[in-house]
Every structure is written in structure tokens, then in C-alpha cells.
């Protein structure tokens, strides 16, 4: 009904509205099928089967919330969640601070701006596997950074995060920041370029310092950019998997396990599908928790404005 009245291309009135624009509908079939079968269907299937006792093969033996109870009693899952919280918190704050600071530095009308930008962004072109392996090598205690600093004469220097359960997450963080800050810097730089030059003139007339201008005037003006960056970083954090596999393999012991890895281990190695489904449903929940406030801010705000 709405098609016929909304469509700007109505010239002839056809009897059957299902065949109106039929070529467009046929051409959109891949999209429709992806949306329905993979995204909606696949997600619904996984959530449904997380309430079964599936082990090697999916089966419909309903067990209620058993899988979830077992999940939250498993040490490995608790460690994974804690790791993700520490990594996520640090990564979020540091990426935003570093990304914004670098963008602000590059925005100060400096020379070689594009050279610096190229340097800061190139790690983003590399995969997490490559990132993890390089940093694994640099942080190697016998040949890497630690041994080099010791070779300079500082014999007691200890920096061996990848073999220390307490600090392994920070080893991952160094690599993760190296790979990801460039992107956020680029987004922030685009945001800074969008700010009116007159703002700067006005603050200069008022005698407000550069740093204070950034904190008090510019950052509040860049709220939408920060929200985009926040969503990007957060969705990246939840997906964290390749980096851990390549850099630490989850070790030493279980000390650098993450939820995404837990899901895949239980689904494809431990042949405990139900656990995998329950864990992935928990990941889905965490995304929903992040996305709903964001969607509210984005679209709720737009309606008001």
C-alpha cells in the first residue's frame, strides 16, 4: 500500500502490488536472506539452543538455565570476564586519551603532518595475528626488550608481562593499543577539523590557554565524535580473540583467557556446544547493554533536537 503512494516512480497503476518493483525485490534477495536467516535466524537459534543440554551435536533436550548456572560457576569464564573488564577499561580510557591527544597534536598546524599520520595509522592495516606475534617477540624475556635493557647495565630490570599471570593483560594492552589507536586518532582528527576556526579566535581573545580550550570548549563540542569512537572501541573489545590466540594463547595457564575464546574452545574443541551457546548469548547481552544507551543517545537525542 505505502509503496504505491510513497514511490516517486509511479506512472502506471499495476494491479498486483507485490510485483511492483519486482526486479528490485529480486535483486535484494541476498540481503533479505542474510538479514533473516543469518542475522535473525542464526542469533535466535543460538539463544534457543543455549537452553539445551547439547554436547557434541545440537539436540533439543531442554535444561532451562542449567548452562548459564554452570557457566557462572566455571573459573575459566570468571577469569575471562575479569580479564575483559580490565583490558576493556584500560583500553577504552587509553585509546580515547591517546587518540585524542595525538589528533590534537597533529591539528596544531605542524610540519610532516601526513608522515606522522601515516605512521600512527599503519598498524591498523595489519591483522591482530601479526600484531600479536610481533609483540610476543618484542616482549620475549630472553631476547626482547627486557634483555636489551639489562644489556645496557640495568641488571635488575624486569619487564616480562607475557609470562606473568598478574601482568599478562597489560602485555596484550600494549599490542592492542599499538594496533587500534590510529583509527581513533583519525576519527578524532576529522572531528577536530570540523570545528570552526572562529572558536579558536574567540578563546584566544578571551585569553584561555590551549590545553584549557581543548578540555573546556573543544571536547564538549565533539561529543558525537566521542560517542562514535566509544562504540567502535567497545565493539572491538568484545570481539577480542585473534590477538590473544596469537600473542599468549590464553596463557600462562588461563590468565589471559577472554570470553570470545571461551565460546570457540567450548564449541569446537571441548565439544560442549551448550556451554558455548550460553557463553555467546552472554556476549550478545553485553553488546545489547552497550548499544541500547547509545541508540537512545543517538536517536532519542535527534528527535528532541
Amino acid at each position: 500500500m505505502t509503496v504505491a503512494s510513497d514511490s516517486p516512480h509511479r506512472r502506471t497503476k499495476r494491479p498486483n502490488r507485490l510485483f511492483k518493483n519486482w526486479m528490485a525485490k529480486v535483486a535484494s534477495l541476498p540481503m533479505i536472506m542474510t538479514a533473516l536467516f543469518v542475522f535473525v535466524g542464526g542469533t535466535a537459534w543460538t539463544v534457543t539452543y543455549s537452553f539445551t543440554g547439547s554436547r557434541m551435536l545440537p539436540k533439543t533436550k531442554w535444561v532451562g538455565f542449567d548452562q548459564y548456572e554452570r557457566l557462572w560457576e566455571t573459573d575459566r569464564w570468571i577469569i575471562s570476564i575479569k580479564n575483559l573488564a580490565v583490558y576493556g577499561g584500560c583500553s577504552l580510557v587509553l585509546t580515547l586519551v591517546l587518540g585524542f591527544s595525538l589528533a590534537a597534536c597533529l591539528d596544531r598546524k605542524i610540519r610532516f603532518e601526513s608522515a606522522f599520520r601515516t605512521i600512527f595509522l599503519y598498524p591498523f592495516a595489519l591483522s591482530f595475528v601479526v600484531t600479536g606475534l610481533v609483540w610476543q617477540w618484542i616482549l620475549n624475556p630472553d631476547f626482547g626488550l627486557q634483555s636489551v635493557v639489562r644489556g645496557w647495565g640495568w641488571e635488575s630490570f624486569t619487564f616480562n608481562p607475557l609470562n606473568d599471570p598478574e601482568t599478562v593483560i597489560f602485555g596484550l594492552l600494549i599490542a592492542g593499543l599499538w594496533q587500534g589507536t590510529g583509527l581513533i586518532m583519525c576519527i578524532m582528527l576529522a572531528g577536530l577539523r570540523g570545528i570552526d576556526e572562529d572558536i579558536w579566535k574567540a578563546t584566544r581573545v578571551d585569553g584561555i590557554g590551549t590545553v584549557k580550550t581543548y578540555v573546556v570548549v573543544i571536547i564538549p563540542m565533539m561529543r558525537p565524535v566521542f560517542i562514535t569512537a566509544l562504540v567502535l572501541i567497545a565493539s572491538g573489545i568484545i570481539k577480542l580473540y585473534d590477538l590473544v590466540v596469537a600473542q599468549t594463547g590464553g596463557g600462562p595457564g588461563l590468565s589471559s583467557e577472554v570470553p570470545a575464546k571461551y565460546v570457540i574452545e567450548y564449541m569446537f574443541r571441548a565439544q560442549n556446544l551448550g556451554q558455548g551457546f550460553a557463553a555467546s548469548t552472554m556476549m550478545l547481552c553485553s553488546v545489547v547493554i552497550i548499544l541500547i544507551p547509545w541508540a537512545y543517545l543517538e536517536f532519542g537525542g535527534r528527535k528532541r533536537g
Partner: protein
Amino acid sequence: MADITTNTTQGPRGPKPKKTFSRANIFLYGTLIVVSMYYLLPLYVMIVTSLKGMPEIRMGNVFGPPMEVTFEPWVKAWAEACTGINCDGLSRGFGNSVRILVPSVLMSIVIASINGYALSNWKFKGSETFFTILIIGAFIPYQTMLYPIVIMLREIGLMGSIGGLVLVHTVFGMPILTLLFRNYFASVPEELFKAARVDGAGFWQIYFQIMIPMALPIFVVAIILQVTGIWNDFLFGVIYTKPATYPMTVQLNNIVNSVQGVKEYNVNMAATLLTGLVPLVIYFASGKLFVRGIAAGAVKG
């Protein structure tokens, strides 16, 4: 090494357009150069390590330039490195990755461009709903959809094959690419479309003769986005293929993190660099377009 030193010495010394050495400027360039070192260090370490022999690595430090340059690690990484029982090096993974990459990029871009075109010019009842689902789908963690896709691929007999992985990449590339093309086609003046309609052009005629020629820059952006994304993929590769069809990233991880045998760090770094070479070349060759591509990926909100 050359990169780092030239930057360090030249950066702050070059002639300035306005002010000379103000304290703020020294601080600014100092910070940027120190941070640049952190970013360049891994690339530098990869290169020098891959050019050293094992004895030199055992005694020397990772940051030192090679005393004797040898390309043997590169040859070994490419043609002899072992994963499990196969000892034919990364070349196999490279071949697999290319065979995955080319059809995936073509298919995902063709489908997404048609989707975007239909969504912006041929809206039909429900088209926006499907599009919204698609965009929300981009935020769902892949882990929730992994197993249902395993079942689907088994049903159509593509599990473990390159064809199956191509399909997976096409599906998961769809949200962002469709958004990219939809936004681009929406910016094309509507008069053009209407004029073509009046002249009697149909769905495909307008697509091929008007839209595609106008959208060439966005096609380049999409290609850059997809080539780097698919080449760097690890998760789908490890789940939907079998050892004979592993893409390069998965094979690389297996080579470097294998527990058997003596660790040959120089071969490992040569292998790592080889795997990173394709996206790096694209990055340095494409320059601004790469930034445009990731910006397009970033504004999906």
C-alpha cells in the same frame, strides 16, 4: 633504522613557516617523535630480525641491525616452514588466501552495490526494515552466529571448503558495504534517475549505465576495505576451513605458535612480515583512500 634516525634528526630542525623554537613546539615534536618510535618499533624489529641468522639472534639484541644480512629466513618461511606434518611453508597459505580473497571481494561488492542501489532508488515495502536488521547485525558478536552457519554450510556441502568461506565473507561484509553504497547512491541527484526512467531505462540499465560509472571512487574504497578485512581475517578462517585450505593468517599462527621443534625467531618474523605485506602495500599505496574507507566504516553509527 634509517626511517627512525632521519625522522629524529630532521623533524624539529627543518625551517619553520612562522615561529622558531618555541618551548611548546619542542614539546609537541618531541612527543610526536617519541610516540612515532613506539609505532615504528615493531615494523623495524620485524625487518631486522627476519634478516639475521639464528646465532646472531641468540647473542645479540632485538633492536640491533643485522651484522650479516641473510635472506634465508625469508626463503624458509615461504617454502619450508612446517605446520604439523606439512612442510611447504607459507606459500600454501598465501595461495589459499588469494583464492579466498578474489571471489570474496568480487561477490561481496557486487551484491552490496546492488543492495545499496535498490535501497536508495527502488525502495519497496520492508526494504528499510531489512536494512536496519542488516546494520544491527553488524554489531552482533560473530560468536552468536558461528554454529548456525556451520550447520548451513554442512547442509549445502561447503563446510571446510574455500567456497564456504567465500560465502561467509560475503555475508559478513554485506552490512558495512551496503551502507557505504546506499549512502553514496543516495547522494546522486534524483533528477538523473528520473530522467533515465522517463527515457524508459529499467532497473539494470540504470545500474550499469548510470550508477556504476559514477560510483567508481566508492568501488575503490570498498575494495580497499574488503581486501584488508578479508586478508586479515583469522576467526572465520580457523573455523570454516580445514588445514589444507587454511588462509595465510591461520597458517602463520600455526607456524609461529607450534610447540614442536626449535624456535626459529628469524623465520617466524619473516613469515609474520610476509603475511602483513599485502595489507601494508595496500595501505601505503592507497593513502587517503584507505582513510576514507575506514572513515566510512567508522560512521556506521
